[in-house]
């Protein structure tokens, strides 16, 4: 199984300081992922730190039988669960709390994006999570599949079915 992180992980096993390169590669994506969940930049920053410290600590337990990034996001989800538990479940911000899309050059598209946000907010949590992993964290299907315990093909199908549903909902006229 190809894992583009393998060289970095191998280096980090030899010298822990090489783990900083892993941080540089994945911290921004993790930050976005946490921010999209919590809506709190300070919390996202803290969670990124916690996740990487946990990853560094537990690197010896990463056996390499799946993509590293799937393992990393597994840790991230646990940190997120801990965060929620201690914060009495701070829910993600409402859809209109995201950056204002009115600045987008295409007003139709801006409207469509806002509509899309509302549609996503109405999806079941696992569907939202799938979209987050794919479009916020930019994870590949291989990694998402390893995280959700499905085959890569099944994961791809799930996502495309979800996209189809969203597209159909988008095309429905607003009430």
């Amino acid at each position, binding site marked *: 199984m190809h894992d583009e992180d393998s060289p970095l992980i191998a280096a980090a096993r030899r010298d822990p300081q090489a783990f900083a390169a892993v941080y540089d590669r994945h911290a*921004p994506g993790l*930050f*976005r992922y946490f921010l*999209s969940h919590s809506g709190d930049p300070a919390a*996202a920053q803290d969670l990124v730190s916690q996740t990487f410290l946990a990853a*560094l*600590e537990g690197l010896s337990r990463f056996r390499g039988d799946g993509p590293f990034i799937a393992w990393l996001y597994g840790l991230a989800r646990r940190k997120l669960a801990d965060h929620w*538990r*201690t914060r009495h479940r701070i829910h993600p911000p409402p859809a209109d709390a995201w*950056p204002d899309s009115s600045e987008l050059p295409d007003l139709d598209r801006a409207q469509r994006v806002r509509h899309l946000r509302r549609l996503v907010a109405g999806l079941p949590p696992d569907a939202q999570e799938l979209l987050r992993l794919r479009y916020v964290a930019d994870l590949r299907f291989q990694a998402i599949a390893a995280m959700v315990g499905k085959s890569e093909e099944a994961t791809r199908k799930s996502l495309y079915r979800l996209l189809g549903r969203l597209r159909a909902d988008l095309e429905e006229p607003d009430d």
Partner: protein
Amino acid sequence: MTEPDPDLERDLRQALRPADPDPRRLQAGRAQLLQATRTQRQQRRWPWALGATLAAGALVAVFAIGLQALQQSPLGGGATADPACNNPTTGYPLNSTSNVPPCANPTAAGTEAFTGSVPITAVATLRPTVGILTTTTAFPQVLVRVSSQPNSGLDRTHWVEGTRIVSLPLLDNAFPYWHDMLKPRFSPDGRQLAWAEAGASGGHTLWVATIDQSLSLAPTRVATTPPPADGDKAPPFYLSGFAWGPNGELFYSTAATALGGLDNAGVLYRWLGEGAAIQVTTGAFHAVLALSADGAQAYVTRLLPENAEWQTAGWGVLHVLTGQVEVLTFRPTGDRAYYYSFEVATLGDGSQRLITLYSASAARGTTVLTGEPELLSMDPQTRQVEVLWSTTSGSMVMGAGDVFFDPQDPGRFVLSVDGRPYLGRVDGSAPVPLSDAWATPLAWTAEGIVLLVTDKAYRQALWLLDAQGALRAQFDFPAADAPNAVNTPVTAPQTYGPERTSTYPIERRWMNSAGLRQFVRETQVGTPGGWAVVSVTQEGDPVTTTVALSETGAPLAVFVDRSADAFSGFRDIEFYECLSIEQQARDLVLLDCTGDGLTLPTSMVWASSLPLDPNYDLDEIEVQLRTWLDRTALELTMQGEELFLNGPQPVDMVWTLTDDEGRIYKIEQQTGTLVEIDARGQFDLAPSGPALDVSELRAMAIQFLARATPAVDVNDGRWSENSNNKGNNYFFDWSDSNGRRVQVAYTASGFLFGYLNTFALPGRGAFVEAQVGPEGTGVRTGPGYDFELIGEIAMFSTIIVEGQFEATDGELWYQVRLNTGQLGWAQSGEIVLPEGAGVPAVTPGP
């Protein structure tokens, strides 16, 4: 299957994807990670030779040593006896200053070692240890769990009854975590033993066995809980506990973050003596510890709502019939309040006490307690809280452990503090050492106090003491329990002369590379030809390094207490045949024979000659500040680190400290310079005298700078003054052309509430914080689309612009700094500068 739709995917990214983080946010995390990697790196330089485990604090249940030492030692069946003791069985010349007679010779006939023969068949690693799993004060037995690997579950349990030790079956216990909530518990009549095991799947199984005279066990499976949901396999969030009720029924609880549709809650089962356990109730609790005398209430642990750490679990009373959980509070809790241990003691009169080790302000960790911990006792009927013991050892306690009450005298208890057993009384009088032995109490039975004792050669045995500390019996562990041990043994048997123990006050402190105050917390020096033990502890992130020096002055072993795993602290014991110790500028460094760098000779006086780096000695900074601020008793407390945004470079990290009045101090990490004092929260300390003239205040500011920043002469022509006032607050401010700045701020009455000094920091040209536009931007190695793309920055991110360059085609490019510190170039049309911001022109490098 619907095919991908690029437009929809693009819009989904737009809809869901927040802006990339401000680089400084990730920079702080990166710095933190690098600190951690440096720690790991240093640890790797040490040749781990033998491991052991000490889980103390909340879950004290394990005290471990290397069995290899046993195997090779006289105690473990080796050949060498201590001639001074003439005790071929034990060879145990330990602590002659102890009030336990050294080398007391228990009758050989009284020691029947390990009649069972259950082999350890699977050894995952080669770090054998002995762990003490459990004890009971209800019945005069001690269960000893011998593990081939810490927390491996490959454990073998032995039962000590009177003077006999009997092996119990090897349990199918493969789950890599266990804790003292799972420790076996005897029924009130002493005829049944219940224990839980965690399987490889993470599920727990509860077993009950009837104990007959033959001491054999035939356990019955009472209940099995399913494995927790994904993400909950690791403790601390999957817990269980069990306790016997007064009528012989068994209560069993299991809890997890997500279990059976419940969120962060526990499920209570009851077993009535036959059949399977039945579910009784659910509630906001985690582990049942004990039942009240009438069986109507269960004392439970519960997580404090604002804290995630297991150590912060609090107490509760679960009303069995209703499932309602009532919160029990020993002390008002704060942000850093910790309940470290949970014990329910039954006194001789049958009444119960909830015993907890509590700290109002604690470092995270399980073996080092800070914040002046107290041992508290609560009568659950009256809710009255008594202080059983409070620390006197520099607000820090090592390895505080379980508390055991004298079954004959409910007012008396034994506990372990700093690896030594202490005898205490409920009347609040100071506990007194029971023995100088390095020992952990395991039980106080009708026969006496059971201690697990370790000698300086790391051999281990069980002692049975009377309440006066006299040794009544001793049990040895066999070497055969570590058949696969391959660790480097103590090659030469250690012999020790008469010992004298001296304890030095905590007076040597310095700051280590992680910015934590570190100090020699204890030095014990033997007589010439004896031994020395030096313990070095750091605050905040409690890691203690203890060096034991042999009679020749050569280091014999190094103990490292870690708390990285919040669940169970580890004490590793490392043996060295060849080791040198060096004190670098800020770190205590232990090198093996292959290590390089400056190596200092070791000697008995090594600890008292540790050189301190004045730049990082809080004492010295405190002395300076006392002079500057005219405060004779100022003391600083380390709070942590953060980015320093007032410096010429926005990437400087500073240590933050506070004094006892709440002022905030910041010390730049690279230079050790005090760069900021912030007393804006202390305006109430300002004198109420008349307002001073501005010229007087300015003179005070210059005078203060002369003391605090003598290298700065604000009148030498290099500084431009930008002093101003906001109401009655005056800011005397000078800066140079490179962004360096000094500022002293006073109230009108002359109270200094601000000081900023970035003179010693690396200067830097102007820069501008800008915003990436809605399309994001690519960052290239040079100002042009032909240059290599080295990064992409998401829309609406904040970005640092340091310069601009107009390319030959007329395109304007900005030089930007990535969060990695790397410089690159971005097209100006994709970046929005603040209104009026000026960006200096720069020339691209080759």
